[in-house]
């Protein structure tokens, strides 16, 4: 059987639904030693801001049951260094490059997008309005429907390339945010960013993360993510990129059935950076066994 693994995110066609999530692949060079980037659907860069960001002080990471908390705080090289030093490496690959943008103001989102959109290697933008570890641009924007609408609208006018709005799960109804993104010109949404969490050291009574709170990721959040994807899928007609605790091909299939057109692998890259390539192969096996000719037919194929 000839299996078609390709999927579409707006005008962007991916050879398969496996994307690498922002903040879990840096700028591609380290992970390329373990997984052939040319075999993947797309890669999403670490969040970029206009100027370099140092990120939060240590400790930035702690493990929790079936998950981890991170409070990196958007440490990144900034747009200028990215274009000069990281793009030449990324150019060598035949994989769609999605730039994730994080900003403190609406103007900064626009300026980042405008600067980056001139670079032809960049095929789409993912707008991070939902980082739980920085105040401006993270928690505040992600929770504010008007801000999400306005950022989407302004970024839309700064680029012709597809825009993906990365949504926060730390809201009451995620579908209303997906709707605001769609109505203001977004091509897709990605869901979910991390959940806000905290862990304490019971001897010192201090938080394990210097930032006190962090973003929870990993298998622990998968059921939450699936529920959020389903909620958006049932209420808003927009392509969804499912994210949250994917550990293998079965999780990918589950996310697709719940409404995802594609998925992003995140925390798993830290544990097994060779896993994304293996998952692509495994998906083909599943489709063959289940007589699924086009993997895209799985999207929102839930039976409720």
């Amino acid at each position, binding site marked *: 059987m000839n299996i078609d693994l390709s999927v579409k995110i707006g005008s962007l066609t991916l050879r398969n639904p496996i994307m690498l999530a922002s903040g879990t692949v*840096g700028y591609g060079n380290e992970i390329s030693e373990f997984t052939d980037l040319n075999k993947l659907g797309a890669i999403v860069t670490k969040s970029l801001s206009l100027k370099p960001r*140092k990120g939060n002080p*240590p*400790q930035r990471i702690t493990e929790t049951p079936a998950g*981890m908390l991170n409070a990196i705080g958007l*440490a990144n090289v900034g747009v200028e260094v990215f274009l000069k030093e990281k793009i030449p490496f990324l150019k060598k690959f035949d994989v769609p490059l999605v730039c994730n943008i994080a900003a403190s103001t609406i103007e900064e989102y626009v300026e980042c997008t405008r600067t980056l959109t001139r670079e032809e290697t960049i095929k789409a933008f993912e707008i991070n309005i939902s980082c739980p570890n920085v105040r401006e641009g993270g928690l505040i924007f992600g929770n504010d429907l008007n801000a999400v609408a306005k950022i989407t609208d302004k970024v839309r006018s700064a680029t012709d390339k597809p825009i993906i709005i990365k949504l926060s799960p730390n809201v009451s109804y995620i579908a209303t945010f997906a709707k605001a993104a769609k109505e203001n010109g977004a091509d897709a949404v990605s869901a979910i960013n991390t959940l806000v969490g905290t862990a304490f050291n019971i001897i010192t009574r201090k938080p394990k993360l210097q930032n006190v709170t962090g973003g929870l990721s990993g298998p622990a959040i998968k059921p939450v993510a699936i529920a959020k994807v389903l909620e958006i899928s049932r209420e808003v007609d927009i392509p969804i990129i499912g994210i949250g605790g994917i*550990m293998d091909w079965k999780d990918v299939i589950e996310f697709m059935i719940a409404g995802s057109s594609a998925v992003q692998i995140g925390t798993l890259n*830290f*544990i*097994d950076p060779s896993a994304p390539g293996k998952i692509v192969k495994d998906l083909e096996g599943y489709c063959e066994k289940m007589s699924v000719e086009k993997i895209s037919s799985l999207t929102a194929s839930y039976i409720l």
Partner: protein
Amino acid sequence: MFILNAPVEETIEIDNRIYLLKVNALEISSIIKPGQFLNVRVSERVSPLLRRPFSVCDVDGEHLYLMFNIMGEGTNILAHKPKGSEIDILGPLGNGFNLGGDYKTAVIVAGGLGAAPFPYFTRTLTGKKDILSFIGGRSKDDVITYNLKNVKEATEDGSRGFKGNVVQLLEKNIELLKSKKIKIFACGPTPMLRALKSFCIKNEFDCEVSTECAMACGFGICQGCSIESITEQEKYLLVCKDGPVFNIKDVVI
């Protein structure tokens, strides 16, 4: 860097609560340097989820040795790996100690499990440099001298060797240290490293330190293991990639 399933050959409890895990991994053992580390996936289950970093304790042909104590679920699983089972290891990671230079005597300073990287270090330097080892712990059960040479011990409760901490023991031996052309190589708990840093600055001793930090990936993508740099204010260094070994003057401890 390799990710491979290494067969477990032996798990030995070398001392009270201190384990040595021997695995077969020629690809890594043939290239790993003293001070580099491995990130170990202790099980395929989702909890514990992340890999655990361990400095390479010793290397013998195709064998790698990891030293650890049981701190929690991950190390408990590791301590009970049966012979013939496999563990998933990623490495070699990090930069290791810079063994070159015109010093005559390598002075090892370690506290508790900070002794872990030094058996391989000692093996590598034997015949090339003189070695002096200053090993400390809270009490005699915390003093790990496995496969070290020319050891002077310090315990805070006085239950073995010098009564006091290991940096006080260095102070006591200052004439000896000053009489030689030395370079210090250290690993241990943060208070020990802080005291050591002052000691090294005061006495103008060159010192490399192996640092520790919570991390997920071990190769630079999670950005979790940040450490403040003295020279580069605008960004953090990463323990996994820029370290774990740093010149003690270059980082905030």
